[in-house]
């Protein structure tokens, strides 16, 4: 290409921007790895934290994290699925209610996580009397991931071949039978992707958890115990514990790996949905 000098400069600027952004991110990862990789081992994952997290591992914290995620997904998945089915099945003609609900969901999706934290503290911890517990934290996160999950599943249901819907109706199948045997299985990749996105977002969350599920780093014995999530652990180690940086970095590596896995799975699942549609 014989390009004019201004054009050449513009291209260089784009390259420069992309390279510098990539370099900063590489810098971040290298720092994390340099600081945390030494502490990362199988023992780190399987032993309990000691000395406020400076020593030992993150076993109880991983368990708390998984329990909180379990509660969040266990509540958000069925409610979200139902809501998505309703939006997809009963609001096809348009109509005000569906539009208003979607608007409310979009508003909810953009809400800062700290606001979810405040709500969770006021509603679950205080009003419902659940206190600082894994249950409070999980329910707060369920509220937080619900809107994104609903919209992802709704989009997936909308992408399901209409021929199947009409075919099921023409065979005299009930709506619930068509959903259970044809529509939901066909939308399974979207449902999986929505779940993974939600899990990724929930696992990364800190602000919504510090005053709902709390700080306690002991191994939780029940859902009504307080439990410290991995993200909260990183926050606490780096802000409140002198000499906690190494373990904070190691925990951050574990958390990034967890979230990256969830996101990759989400991408793979939605891609499967796409190819399946193209195969028809």
């Amino acid at each position, binding site marked *: 290409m014989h390009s004019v000098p201004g054009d050449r400069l513009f291209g260089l600027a784009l390259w420069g921007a992309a390279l510098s952004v990539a370099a900063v991110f590489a810098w971040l990862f290298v720092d994390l790895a340099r600081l945390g990789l030494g502490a990362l081992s199988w023992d780190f994952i399987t032993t309990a934290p000691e000395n406020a997290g400076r020593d030992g591992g993150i076993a109880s914290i991983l368990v708390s994290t998984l329990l909180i995620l379990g509660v969040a997904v266990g509540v958000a998945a069925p409610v979200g699925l139902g809501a998505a089915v309703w939006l997809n099945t009963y609001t096809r003609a348009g109509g005000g209610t569906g539009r208003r609900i979607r608007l409310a969901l979009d508003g909810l999706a953009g809400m800062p996580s700290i606001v979810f934290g405040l709500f969770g503290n006021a509603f679950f911890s205080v009003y419902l009397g659940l206190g600082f517990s894994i249950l409070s934290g999980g329910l707060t996160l369920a509220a937080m991931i619900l809107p994104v999950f609903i919209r992802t599943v709704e989009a997936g249901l909308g992408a399901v071949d209409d021929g199947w819907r009409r075919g099921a109706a023409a*065979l005299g199948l009930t709506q619930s039978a068509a959903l259970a045997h044809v529509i939901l299985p066909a939308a399974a990749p979207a449902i999986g992707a929505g779940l993974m996105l939600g899990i990724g977002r929930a696992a990364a969350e800190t602000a919504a958890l510090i005053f709902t599920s709390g700080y306690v780093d002991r191994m939780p014995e029940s859902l009504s115990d307080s439990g410290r999530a991995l993200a909260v652990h990183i926050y606490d180690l780096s802000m409140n514990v002198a000499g906690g940086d190494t373990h904070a970095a190691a925990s951050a590596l574990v958390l990034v790996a967890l979230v990256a896995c969830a996101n990759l799975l989400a991408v793979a699942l939605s891609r499967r949905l796409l190819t399946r549609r193209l195969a028809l």
Partner: protein
Amino acid sequence: MNPHTLGCIEAGTPCCVPVPHLSIENLAVSYGDTPVLSDVSLDIYKGCITALIGPSGCGKTSFLNALNRLTDLIPGARVEGRLRLVDGANSLDLLDPGLDVRALRRRVGMIFQRPNPFPLSIRRNLELPLREHGMRRADALAHKIETALSDVGLWEEVRDRLDAPALALSGGQQQRLCIARALVLEPEILLMDEPCSALDPIASGVVEEMIQSLSGRYTVVIVTHNLAQARRIGNYAAFFWMRERIGQLVEFGRCRQIFDAPVHPATAAYIGGMRG
């Protein structure tokens, strides 16, 4: 001799007795405020194949969808007029809002333009409607499945791989599976919306032959843009045309009469144009 017997019809199976199976009077369909079909009156005769012909967008598919109330699925769709399913001395008002639509659709099956087997195994595709209509016994299920697949000439092709995904079948096989899926419920009437148009010529021929073999046993209403096909398999033909952007039934009669001696000039022009 039965006064209703028409004698031999050149095209199609020997002959059939014009006993109304579906009786349609002044049927009109509209979507929202847009009328798409108005003032359609005709009888669909029992055991005969009735071909619906005419240009695209003149309401043939809407008409077909009204016959098994699939219009219910379309938001804002309204069907007016009289539409009855005649069964001896009894007749069922199909536009009754309180009608058991599931029972109706069991009696009136439908085949779509694009084959739409469910993303399940071949066996599950046929089992699902049976189970949902209350059949649970394994031996009866197996027997019905074999019968339906044999009826569409698919049994020999798939008997060894009933648990393979239905979507792995070829287009023509998929369409025959969809017909089997409709037949397995033992309907009286089959509605077909251009069942061959998405298939290659060979598969199309196979499906067409199969449809022809259904006449006599089932009442078939088929939309087709292929006039030669309509002529080959139809006993009766209904010609739809647009007037002021609303679809209307222009002419209805025996297939041979419609093709060889059309009464209405629009019919003549359409058939002549398509032929030339």
